[in-house]
């Protein structure tokens, strides 16, 4: 998957919608800790259509945004999103995943790894790390995977994403 001239406008629109969803819809949903993370979805959509280096840069930028807007330690989100962006782009290039369940697994794993790195890098106490890794991160990964699949299904034509069920 790569973004040609034709679908760059659609890509920008999708990113804009995801950012709006992240900052306008997500606070209105249920418990924000397990609500789907649309920034991670945006990062993975970018990473799936670009090289690992671009994914890393996108992760750095989105991580900076996340750090600026959340009370976690500044820099932890940047590091986590950078790694996730790079790995998502690299993994997709390696596995050639076009299956929708593989995409869902990528969303789930992206959220889980991101949370793991954020918690580890921000120096959270042991109890909260355990709860974050084994309770909150999986739940948030699940909701993000569902939302990510919906997003991919809706925008597959614009972004020329091939999805095999």
């Amino acid at each position, binding site marked *: 998957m790569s973004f040609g001239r034709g679908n760059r406008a659609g890509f920008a629109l999708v990113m804009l919608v995801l*950012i*709006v969803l992240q*900052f*306008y*819809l*997500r*606070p*209105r949903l249920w418990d924000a800790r397990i609500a789907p993370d649309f920034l991670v979805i945006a990062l993975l959509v970018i990473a799936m259509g670009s*090289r*690992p*280096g*671009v994914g*890393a*840069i996108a*992760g*750095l930028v989105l*991580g*900076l*945004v996340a*750090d*600026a*807007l959340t009370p976690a*330690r*500044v*820099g*932890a989100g*940047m*590091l986590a999103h*950078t*790694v996730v962006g*790079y790995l998502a*782009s*690299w993994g997709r290039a390696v596995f050639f995943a076009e299956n929708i369940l593989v995409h869902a697994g990528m969303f789930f794993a992206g959220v889980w790894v991101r949370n793991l790195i954020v918690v580890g*890098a921000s120096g959270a106490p042991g109890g909260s790390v355990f709860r974050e890794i084994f309770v909150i991160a999986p739940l948030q990964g699940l909701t993000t995977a569902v939302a990510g699949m919906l997003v991919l299904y809706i925008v597959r034509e614009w972004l020329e994403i091939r999805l095999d069920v």
Partner: protein
Amino acid sequence: MLTASDRTYSRRDTATLLVCVAISLVILLLPPALGQGIAASLRETVLTPAIWLQARAQEGRTSRARFAAVVSQRDSTAAAAQAVPLLTAENRRLRELLDLGRRVRLRHAAAEVLHQPSATDDRMLLLDVGSEDGVRGFEPVIAPEGLVGVILNVTTRTATVMTWAHPEFRVSAFTADGRVFGLVAPSTGTVASEAALEFRAASYRDTLAPGTLVLSSGLGGVYPKGIPVGRVEGVAREQEGWERVYRLLPAANPSAVSHVMVVLDRGDSLSDAFPADSILAAARADSLARVAAADSALRAGIADSVRAHLRDSLARAAASPAPAVAPATQRPAAPAAAPRRPDSAAARRDSSAPPPDTTP
């Protein structure tokens, strides 16, 4: 196998990753104040739209919560407001009952009516007082408005009341002016919810105006005298030209009463307990005084008239020549034919009959 271009890209990607990780680590390892400063400057500049969006979302969420709280408060207020008229009505009824209790000089017991949701609820009532409160059978039950019924059955803690709506209810009654006596009974052929009363055995020549108050007469020994039973609404029927049956609007509604009073003593009268009757009693006393005053004036007028007549007669007798008066022993017998004026003073003196009535 990777081509040279792929390897270039791969090295470049790796380098990019390393640079990004290095930047992240540098920022991560900065003093927290400096990191927060960077985050704050971002929030103040490029992330302002995101902050604005988040603020609107939070506002919407809290607005929903506030709206829910306002709706809850409104519902609570509405529920409380619905209870206010009921409480007000109950308060008014209890105050009326307290007033009635002060006015009733006979021994009595206040009771609460335990209503049951049945069609015949207003015919028989259950009270929360019984024999341990001094209640016995056939004691009258009254409300501030008037007569409700009579105790029919008593247990230790409850009592059953036969209300005036019961087909077997009867009470001797009379009109408030004391002119017409009769018997009050529930009207026949009406359903319980539309029960009314009839004032029976009123003679045909007596006509009662609508609105006339009918009270218990005290005859029969069950109901004390002076309890309002109802007001005349109109003629229900006439029976063969000798009896009129009047339809009464009952004074008390058994379906609506919540608190009543059981009169425990069989006294003479409860006229003082009901304001309307008291006013009528006052009016009756006033009327009697007026009648007495008029009678006195009439008598005085009659006496004046008689005295004037006597003076006139005496004056005329003195003006005419007086006959020689012989000693009684020598008095000849009066001629039998001599006529004597009936209005002459002598005739009056001799007559033991009362003077003729000169009153018009």
